[in-house]
């Protein structure tokens, strides 16, 4: 049990945060999504979503493209290969942890 907990303690802390994990789970199944779609899917406020996206972008997990649709600002987000790998590793670690700690 201690070693399971030990393995799991090496989990990527950036991904291991509920809001960011949800953002990554949404982006993992699409090519790209805009800010409005992410806000709707995650249920986060604009401020929270911006903060989490900035952290994910700084880590190189999410690529953010700021553009315009007509005169409206458009923020397009997509997972980078590093972000996809980090999320996949996180899922594997989480599933491993659950499997090893099953009663």
């Amino acid at each position, binding site marked *: 049990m201690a070693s399971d907990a030990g393995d799991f303690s090496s989990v990527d802390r950036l991904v291991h945060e509920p809001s960011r994990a949800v953002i990554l789970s949404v982006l993992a199944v699409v090519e*790209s999504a805009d800010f409005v*779609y992410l806000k709707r899917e995650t249920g986060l406020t*604009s401020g929270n979503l911006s903060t989490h996206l900035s952290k994910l972008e700084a880590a190189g997990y999410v690529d*953010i493209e700021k553009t315009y649709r007509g005169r409206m600002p458009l923020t397009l987000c997509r997972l980078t290969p590093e972000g996809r790998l980090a999320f996949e590793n996180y899922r594997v670690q989480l599933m491993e942890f659950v499997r090893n700690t099953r009663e």
Partner: protein
Amino acid sequence: MKQELNKSLLRAVQYHYIDGTFEFTFSGLCLVLAAFFYVQAKLPESLISTILMWLFVLIIPSGSILINRLVNRFKEKVTYPRTGYLSYQKPKGVNKAVKTGFAMGVTAIIGGLVAAIITGSPQALDWMPGLTSFVFAFVFAWIGFRSSLPRFLLLGFLLLLSGVLLSVTGFGNILGLSLFYAIAGLLLLVSGALTLRVYLLRNPRDVEEQDGF
């Protein structure tokens, strides 16, 4: 987490059908085909019928392009500002080849079956609305199961029912096909309009989401 990911995928798939534009697209094509077959049935030897016959190969692709453009325009004006923009992952490599091969295989099997039935018995032509409705029902059932949206299962059932009823009641092949496509077009139009109405009620313009990044 796997469950969460599946849920994200399902919601992304459902988002494609959220505003009824899919039904409008399909409805437009069906109504064009209904008009085409109606002219073929009512004016079989006319000049317009001959011209339309020659243009048939252009009707589907050009109609699809035109309707696609209209749908994109509509989504840019109505859907994306309200509930956001999403682009889907395109199948790559082996996955793309398998999907293309599957689509071609199904088309070849259906085409072969229809050709075999018609060659074996010319009266089988009377069953063209029924056969077409079977293909439609299969497509809509697949979409319904894939997206977990029951309205597509209902549409598939209604289309199958109308195609079989047209065949049983003895409408000739071409006129029957025209009627089938007209019914399909109207059913899809109604479904699309109801879906759009629900979407607009749930996402009114005054609470339009803003890009706040």
